[in-house]
């Protein structure tokens, strides 16, 4: 079969694809640019979202939970609770016990001059408490889950962890994520649509060539293969250009952002992991291939 003979000639098709790219630079440029820009916007967009999440979490800072025992509970009960809390909160958390006396001393200190008035008390009416300081890496959902666990311990009569604050942080992240999902879907759909239409236009500009190939006895695969290779090459080039663009944007933005990020010590502008870079480049190639396949397919059927 001649078809099989052709499929065994990948070099021939690669050669023809490259010749076409070189001979019609406008078209290859437009398709490549469309893919590059779409991927660039998509990547910057994904990085902004992930950066926003990281920033919000950093803003929250280290979370701080306070477990109150009954005022009647002995200091020993607080110490036992502290051990249990340390176990639940994990090795990275810092746990501190505040006894009846320590609680009163703290209040006196806080009241300053007025503190002397407390010396007249016969009995200490304050509760002992346990303070749990979580690492910065703990996020809102983890804090909330831990607070719920603590609240279920019978000795604990109240858990204070800035619920309102956490609720707002969680809401904000949720809003961010919904926007991200919407915009992500839009950018992806826009990319596929634009790329396939742009390639359709380049195929249209070569309709005579396709017609002549078919009149000379070329099979559909003979017509299609160079277009597919061209699409994949354009897509790959687009992906690589997008990666370069992301690196450049990061480079330009880094000094501007330094101030804004000063409070979030140790936080850096988000970067693409090697696997994500591969995904961008491969995604470009896939996009180009898919766009070409759709465009040529529509054309060959017509």
């Amino acid at each position: 079969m001649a078809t099989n003979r052709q499929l065994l000639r990948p070099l021939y098709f690669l050669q023809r694809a490259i010749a076409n790219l070189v001979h019609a630079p406008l078209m290859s440029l437009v398709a490549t640019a469309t893919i590059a820009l779409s991927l660039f916007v998509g990547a910057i967009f994904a990085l902004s979202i992930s950066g926003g999440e990281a920033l919000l979490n950093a803003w929250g800072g280290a979370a701080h939970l306070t477990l109150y025992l009954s005022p009647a509970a002995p200091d020993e009960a607080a110490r036992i609770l502290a051990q249990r809390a340390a176990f639940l909160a994990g090795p990275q958390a810092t746990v501190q016990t505040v006894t009846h006396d320590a609680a009163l001393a703290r209040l006196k200190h806080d009241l300053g001059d007025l503190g002397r008035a407390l010396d007249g008390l016969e009995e200490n009416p304050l509760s002992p408490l346990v303070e749990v300081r979580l690492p910065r890496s703990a996020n809102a959902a983890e804090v909330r889950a831990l607070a719920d666990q603590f609240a279920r311990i019978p000795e604990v009569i109240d858990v204070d962890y800035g619920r309102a604050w956490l609720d707002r942080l969680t809401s904000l992240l949720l809003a961010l994520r919904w926007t991200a999902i919407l915009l992500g879907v839009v950018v992806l759909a826009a990319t596929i649509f634009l790329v396939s239409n742009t390639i359709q236009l380049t195929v249209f500009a070569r309709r005579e060539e396709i017609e002549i190939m078919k009149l000379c006895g070329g099979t559909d695969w003979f017509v299609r293969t160079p277009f597919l290779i061209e699409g994949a090459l354009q897509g790959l080039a687009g992906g690589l250009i997008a990666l370069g663009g992301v690196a450049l944007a990061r480079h330009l933005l880094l000094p501007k952002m330094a101030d804004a990020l000063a409070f979030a010590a140790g936080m850096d502008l988000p970067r693409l992991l090697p696997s994500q870079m591969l995904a961008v480049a491969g995604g470009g190639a896939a996009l180009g291939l898919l766009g070409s396949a759709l465009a040529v397919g529509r054309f060959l059927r017509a």
Partner: protein
Amino acid sequence: MIKLFHVTKSYLGDRPCIADLSLTVDKSEFVFLTGPSGAGKTTLLRLIFAAERPTSGQIIVGGRNIARLSASAIPYLRRNIGVVFQDFKLLNNRSVLDNVAFALEVIGERVGPARRRAREMLGRVGLEHKAESPPQRLSGGEQQRVAIARALVNSPAIVLADEPTGNLDASLTADILQLLFDSNARGATIVVATHDRGLLTRFPRRAVQLAHGKMTSDG
């Protein structure tokens, strides 16, 4: 080799351009197809290489029933047919050489041998010196000869030539017809559509005359 039985081809809203036409062209026969402008010569050739489907009737080419051919089988039919199009149909973004070699590449020939044979064929139509030009830069008659070279380069069993000498002067016309006669002598079946009845007197062959899609004379 080519057999038409009661073939009709009509386009929506027009009277048929081919009307109930029956015709047999034997293997290795040479036939002129004549008739005035709009008689249906081009349409008849297009039916034979399956660029159009007949509205009714049967067409058999090289033993295959064209009307029943699946879309994926058409390319393989066309590889046995060399066509000279009335409007040449050359690729403007490729060189003349590539245009001719292309007909060989389509059927799976390797690039090197394809270009060699294409260059040789260009020599036979007197255009070896224009091999590297794009067709746009050629004169009308030169483009026509490229189209002829492309049709003949893979020595097809059937050659359909539509006005192959419309842009050529008398001496080049004789050269090109000689190429077709040679090909015919080597066994190819050849149909040449032309409005030029002068050709028939200079090169007497079987001539099928069409008018308004009907055969008006044969012989």
